[in-house]
Each structure stands twice: as structure tokens, then as C-alpha cells.
């Protein structure tokens, strides 16, 4: 995809992932002329996805390598924990891992599709426990955009009426698939332990979308937007319950920006996309208004400029902070929109800890298809709100539990380490042991809320530029006791569940939460770095993702987040980006931008 940027655009968007894709869709559908610049290559899930290939069709049985860390078939191009020629660093004493992808659609091509709404508490955490910050808007302000986002991208799930775990209005969620056998066993254990185990919310279609109804709901009074949206919805098939979503989906059943939001945006005729365009900085005029961006054309390695009336930075939280910090001028010597010095500050990730187990009841299960919709069908939302309010927990904020295991497609590591159970069998006995133990393993991953702190931030590394000559990021990271204690609590909960299932824990349970917790960044839910707020002295952006200092500059990805609820961030990124895009349209129409 490569149309030359010739005209003057209303809006230039940096990045084509969840945030950039959503902004492009909403703006283009609203009649705004948009140029999207994407650092990665053009990418088409319809033609490029290896759907049914077996591990034995891939090098090294498809196992992860430095260049393909999540496996050969994982839909990550030019990325992973490293991007070739684009380094980053961690300050001494800090560990931060940063997952990136350089492709159209960014990380929406291989994300887990878990799509949970933040609840009312999650927008006002400071008011509840005095930690961190409140958001400048409430759940009620964002709820209509959650409705729209879920309706557009297609999310399966159920309404359970649980505390701080919002229901969606009727007609929005798709029907969840029936649970797998191992998930039913977990649910029974959860019943015993008082842990809710309910249908997960995943951005996968289990039915064809009701294109006419949904497009009218999304775009009342806008026939063009209705047409492109309905056409796009009709081109998507429902999940056929095979093939791992992490490879992408050639039938467009799951959410990927290049199959769900970019095609209708392009169909309006209002969107041009230039790939292989690595943005370095936002440019400003003498009055300090943004005029566009400088980018490196990666094919020629030459610098180009793209002008627009409005600049939307949506390059993913840390990349966006990096672009702002690198946008230095005499008016903005410390980077654009950074008069407060807050750009790059209050980075957050998710608290992650996991435990695996072996369940004798699941040995020798009768063969049956357990692929399902790739992702988990059931999960556990956070359930200890009351205990926490009574002061019975030694940490603030909650976590949800993600379930895995059972009779999934055998992979490289499915039988490694079996010696632990077999006493070292080989020969016919080993063959029978493999049959017996196959599918009897389960794992539990906790995903919990981190509270923003002063010690977690990124800054420009004075000693390093990337291969495009752009200064790179250096990360600082420190967990607080809240996160570490939470990680320990997770591990004990998971051990309890495994024991209630009659199983044995196969992981080491760490008594020190600092050992249980995954390194910063590893859960790949990094947000913050350009926080929003009500007060221009204490925030970078207002509630519409608009810079306080430069009113035609917006940051619409995870960077504006002021808290990082246990709910995986991407659904909220998209809902908040849609809300910001509506505001941009309104301001453009009112002649204020």
C-alpha cells in the first residue's frame, strides 16, 4: 500500500494498529481526508496467513527463535522483543521488555483478542483507594464507545452482572462458544472455591455479523459509512474453530486492523496509506501549532514531510512518547506537548504470574476436538472486591485469570520434561505415557492491575540512535509492593485451583512476589507515557486525547492511560480512540482546528 502523499490532508495518523486503525476508520467514515503513515511493511492477512500448516511444516517444528520469538507462524513481521536496527535500552537496575511489530496493523495481527471493558471503578481508582490517578472521564462517558467498538469488531462473551465487570447492551455481544472440557473442570473447581469462571470476551466472530442492523446502529444518518461498514462486515466469515489466532485469520473472523477497520476506511476514498514510513518527529510552525510530521522513507532512506491540519500520533504508547520527546524545537525544547515534563512518565504494564499443573482426571481422555476459537472460552474476572474493601488483602486492585491447557494441537514442547512423571520411560512404555499424559496439563495466567509510579518511565537515550538516525528509548522500571504481593496471591490462587481439580502443581510457587512477577513489559500491555487529565499542569492530554499545549496534536493509543486495570487494554484503546476521533470531527467541523 503506497499512495504518494500529494494533497494536503485534514489529518495525518502515525501508526496503523488498534489505535491508528480505529482513528482512520472513524475519521474516514466521517468524511475527513486522512493520511496514515506506517513504519512497517504492507501486510495482508487474507493472502499471507499460514492457517492449517502443522509444526512439522515449519523450521524447528515452529518453535520460537530470536527472530520469531512466539513461533515461526506467529503473525509478527520484523519484530518481537527486538526490531532489527531499532534498539532500545533499560537503565541500570531496570528490566523492561518491549514487544513491537513492523507491519500494517501492528500488533493487532497477533494479539490475544481478549477484549474486556474497564468498569466504573477502573475509571476512578484514586477516588476509591487514594492510589494513582482518576481518569478525567467516567465509565458512562466511554460506555457508548465500548458498545460501538464491540459492535464493529465483533466480540463474543456474556453478560454476567458481576461487580465492576460491565454488561454490554442487548444485541452487541456475539454468542460465546461452549466451554472446553478442561475449562468445565476449572469451573467446577471455581464453584468450590468461590471463584467465578464465566465466558471470556474475545474479539472473534462466532456468527456472521448482522451487517445492516449494526452499520445503521454505528452510523445513523451517514449512508457512506453504513455502506462501507456493511460491505466489510459481509466479507468476514464466522470462526470455523480451527487454526491458531496468533497466526492471523485469513477468513477475517477475528479482529485485525488490516481486515476489519482499514478496508472500510479505504473504501470511503478518504484514506491514503503509506507503508515503510518511519516517523521521526512532529513539526511545528512559529506559533507552535503542529504542521505535520517528518518521516524516513525506509526504501530510499530519505527524509520526507507530510503536512496536515491535525496530527494524530498512534504509534503505540512508548513509540508515541518517543516521537513527542524527539519533536524538539525552539518553542518546545524538551519535546512537543512536554511543558509539564510528563511525557514518557507513568509507564504501566500488567502484573503477570502463572502456574501450571497436571490433572490425573484429564489423562487418557477420549479423543475429541478441543481447538475451539483458539483463545480461552472461559475466564475468571476479579472477584475479591469485598475482601479487598475490608482490608483482607495485602495489595490494591485486582487481577483476572486466563485459562489454558487441554488437548490442543501438539507442539514442540508438549512432551518435553515428561521424565518427571514417567521416571524416564522409553520405548513402548514411553509411547503409551505420551498418549496418557497428552492433554492432561493446564495453566493459569494472572493478569493484574499495576499502579502507576514515579520509577517507571522512558526517556531518550542520549547514547543511541536507530538505523533511521532517530534517537531511541531508555526504560526505567520498578514494581511496588502492591504488584509483587498481587503476583504472590495469584500463584497461591492457581495452586488452590489445581489442587481442587485433583491435580498437582508443576511450577515452583514463589513466596517472594518479586520472583513470581514477570518483568516489566513482558505482558505486552504497556500504557501511559502521555497521561490525560483535567489539569493542564498535571497531565499531557485532555480527556479527548488532545494536547493541552498544541491543540491540533492528539495521542490516541495507550499513552493517555492514567491507570491500567486488569482488563487487557486494547478494547479500551479503541473505544477511547473512537471517542477522540468523534471529537476531532466535531472540532474540525466547528472550524476550531
Amino acid at each position, binding site marked *: 500500500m503506497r499512495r504518494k502523499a500529494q494533497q494536503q490532508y485534514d489529518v495525518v495518523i502515525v501508526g496503523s494498529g488498534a489505535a491508528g486503525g480505529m482513528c482512520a476508520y472513524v475519521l474516514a467514515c466521517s468524511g475527513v481526508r486522512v493520511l496514515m503513515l506506517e513504519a512497517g511493511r504492507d501486510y495482508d492477512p487474507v493472502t499471507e496467513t499460514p492457517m492449517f500448516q502443522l509444526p512439522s511444516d515449519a523450521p*524447528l517444528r515452529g518453535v520460537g527463535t530470536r527472530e520469531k520469538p512466539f513461533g515461526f507462524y506467529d503473525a509478527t513481521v520484523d519484530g518481537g522483543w527486538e526490531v532489527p536496527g531499532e534498539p532500545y535500552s533499560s537503565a541500570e537496575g531496570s528490566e523492561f521488555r518491549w514487544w513491537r511489530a513492523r507491519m500494517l496493523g501492528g500488533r493487532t495481527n497477533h494479539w490475544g483478542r481478549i477484549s474486556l471493558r474497564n468498569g466504573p471503578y477502573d475509571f476512578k481508582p484514586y477516588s476509591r483507594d487514594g492510589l494513582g490517578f482518576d481518569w478525567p472521564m467516567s465509565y458512562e462517558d466511554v460506555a457508548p464507545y465500548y458498545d460501538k467498538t464491540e459492535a464493529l469488531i465483533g466480540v463474543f462473551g456474556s453478560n454476567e452482572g458481576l461487580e465492576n465487570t460491565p454488561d454490554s447492551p442487548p444485541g452487541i455481544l456475539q454468542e460465546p462458544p461452549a466451554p472446553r472440557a478442561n475449562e468445565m473442570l476449572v469451573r467446577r473447581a471455581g464453584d468450590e472455591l468461590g471463584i467465578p469462571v464465566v465466558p471470556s470476551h474475545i474479539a472473534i466472530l462466532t456468527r456472521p455479523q448482522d451487517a445492516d442492523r449494526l452499520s445503521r446502529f454505528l452510523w445513523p444518518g451517514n449512508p457512506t459509512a453504513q455502506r462501507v461498514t456493511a460491505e466489510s462486515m459481509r466479507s468476514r466469515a464466522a470462526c470455523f474453530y480451527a487454526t491458531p489466532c496468533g497466526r492471523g485469520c485469513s477468513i477475517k473472523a477475528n479482529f485485525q486492523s488490516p481486515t476489519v477497520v482499514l478496508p472500510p476506511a479505504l473504501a470511503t476514498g478518504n484514506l491514503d496509506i503509506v507503508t515503510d514510513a518511519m516517523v521521526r518527529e512532529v513539526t511545528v510552525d512559529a506559533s507552535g501549532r503542529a504542521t505535520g510530521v517528518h518521516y524516513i522513507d525506509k526504501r530510499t532512506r530519505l527524509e520526507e514531510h507530510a503536512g496536515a491540519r491535525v496530527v494524530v500520533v498512534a504509534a503505540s504508547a512508548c513509540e508515541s512518547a518517543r516521537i513527542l520527546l524527539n519533536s524538539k524545537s525552539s518553542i518546545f525544547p524538551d519535546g512537543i506537548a512536554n511543558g509539564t515534563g510528563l511525557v514518557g512518565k507513568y509507564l504501566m504494564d500488567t502484573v503477570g504470574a502463572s502456574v501450571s499443573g497436571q490433572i490425573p482426571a484429564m489423562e487418557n481422555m477420549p479423543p475429541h476436538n478441543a481447538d475451539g476459537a483458539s483463545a480461552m472460552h472461559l475466564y475468571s474476572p476479579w472477584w475479591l472486591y469485598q475482601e479487598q474493601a475490608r482490608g483482607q488483602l495485602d495489595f490494591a486492585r485486582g487481577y483476572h485469570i486466563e485459562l489454558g491447557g487441554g488437548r490442543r494441537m501438539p507442539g514442540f514442547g508438549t512432551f518435553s520434561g515428561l521424565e518427571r512423571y514417567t521416571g524416564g520411560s522409553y520405548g513402548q512404555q514411553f509411547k503409551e505415557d505420551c498418549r496418557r499424559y497428552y492433554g492432561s496439563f493446564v495453566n493459569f495466567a494472572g493478569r493484574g492491575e499495576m499502579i502507576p509510579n514515579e520509577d517507571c518511565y522512558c526517556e531518550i537515550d542520549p547514547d543511541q540512535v536507530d538505523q533511521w538516525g532517530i534517537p531511541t528509548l531508555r526504560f526505567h522500571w520498578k514494581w511496588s509492593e502492591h504488584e509483587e504481593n498481587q503476583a504472590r496471591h495469584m500463584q497461591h490462587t492457581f495452586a488452590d485451583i489445581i489442587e481442587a481439580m485433583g491435580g498437582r502443581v508443576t511450577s515452583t510457587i514463589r513466596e517472594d512476589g518479586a520472583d513470581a512477577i514477570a518483568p516489566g513489559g513482558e505482558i505486552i500491555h504497556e500504557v501511559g507515557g502521555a497521561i490525560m487529565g483535567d489539569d493542564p499542569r498535571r497531565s499531557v492530554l485532555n480527556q479527548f486525547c488532545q494536547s493541552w499545549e498544541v491543540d491540533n496534536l492528539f495521542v490516541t493509543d495507550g499513552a493517555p492511560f492514567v491507570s491500567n486495570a486488569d482488563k487487557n487494554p486494547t478494547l479500551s484503546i479503541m473505544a477511547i480512540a473512537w471517542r477522540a476521533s468523534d471529537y476531532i470531527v466535531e472540532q474540525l467541523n466547528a472550524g476550531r482546528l
Partner: protein
Amino acid sequence: MDRRQALKVMAIAAAVPSLTSCAPTDAGDDVVVAPAAANPKAAGTAWDPDLLAPVIPWERTLTSDELETLATLCDIIIPADERSPGASQLGAHDFIDEWVSAPYARNERDQVTVRGGLVWLDGESAGRFGEGSRFRELDAAQQRAICDDIRSVADAPSGLEAGARFFDRVRDLTAAAFWTTREGMQDLGYVGNVPLARWDPPPPEVLRHLGLE
């Protein structure tokens, strides 16, 4: 990858969805796989390989003699029975060659383990059953006598720890190779990876098995 491997390979013309191994030349400073054949958008580098027509860009290192012994060992670990063939028939020894030849630190470590282990195995055979005895030429009872002693890292007799670690590694790699093939999956009763018109709850016999009725 620890060492910057300078591997650059010839273009693979045919867009076959099977693995092709190709000879490296000397130029380049990164692993370059092949100009994408099935997927013209892919750069064909290790960071952006053609997923639809994978190639293995490194050369195999094991000798035919090593492979022969390895094949024997793979079949001792996973022999043929009425449900599926033996491991070597599904190419487990070739996979181990592919694995230990790969330019990544863990694979390089495994190369030392496997090659060293194969030498050790023949040495152990000669020590127990007479000079010149090769493991692959021993009779089944003799082979079992050695394998029984190295079957478990935890219980390895003193002096045989390295042999047990070698055996354990080959067992894991053989299992990885074997069960990830179509035949291996069939044997296990993995019946997924087929498109379904609808998704049903687990069948009654599964619920019965789990006591979930």
C-alpha cells in the same frame, strides 16, 4: 543467535509448502532465507520469512554415520507399534540434525550434547560388549541394558550422568519431532485443525470421563 551467521541462500523457485534446505553462500550479515516464493510481500529474511513456503537456511551438520546411530536410538525411544510407525520412519533423526545445526545458542548447546553423546554411546557399547562394538549393531537386549541405565537423569548411576542427560535430550527431541507430525497427531487422537461449521460442547464420553455429567 549468538554468532552473526553469514548465511545467504539461493532463491527457491518452486512455491512448495514443504521444507527445503538450501546451501548457504558467504555474503550478507544476517540470516537471509530466500526471496519469497509463495508470498511476494514477505522479505524472505529470518525476521520476515515466507510462512507459506518455509525454508531452512542453515546447513545440516551430522554425518551419515551419526545419523544412522541416532535413527537407531530414536526408534528405541519411540518404536513402531500397531498405531503408528517408529520415530525414524517419521524423520525424527533428520529433525534432530536440523535442530542441532541451527545457529541459535540453545541449539548449539544441544549439538555438543548430541554429538558428544553419540560418541559416548559407542564408547560405552565397546566398554561393555567388546572393543569395536557399535551401539547400533548391538542386539536389542544389549541396547536395552545401556538405555536402562541412562533412562533417568534423576536416577542415573554415578559416572553415567552425562549419558543420562544426553538420552533425556534425545528423548525430548524425538518426542517433539514425532508427535508434531500428522501421523503422530493421529496416534494421539488429536482430531482438531479441521474447519467446523459449528462448535459443540465436549461429547458425553468426555464428560463421563471427567465426572462432569
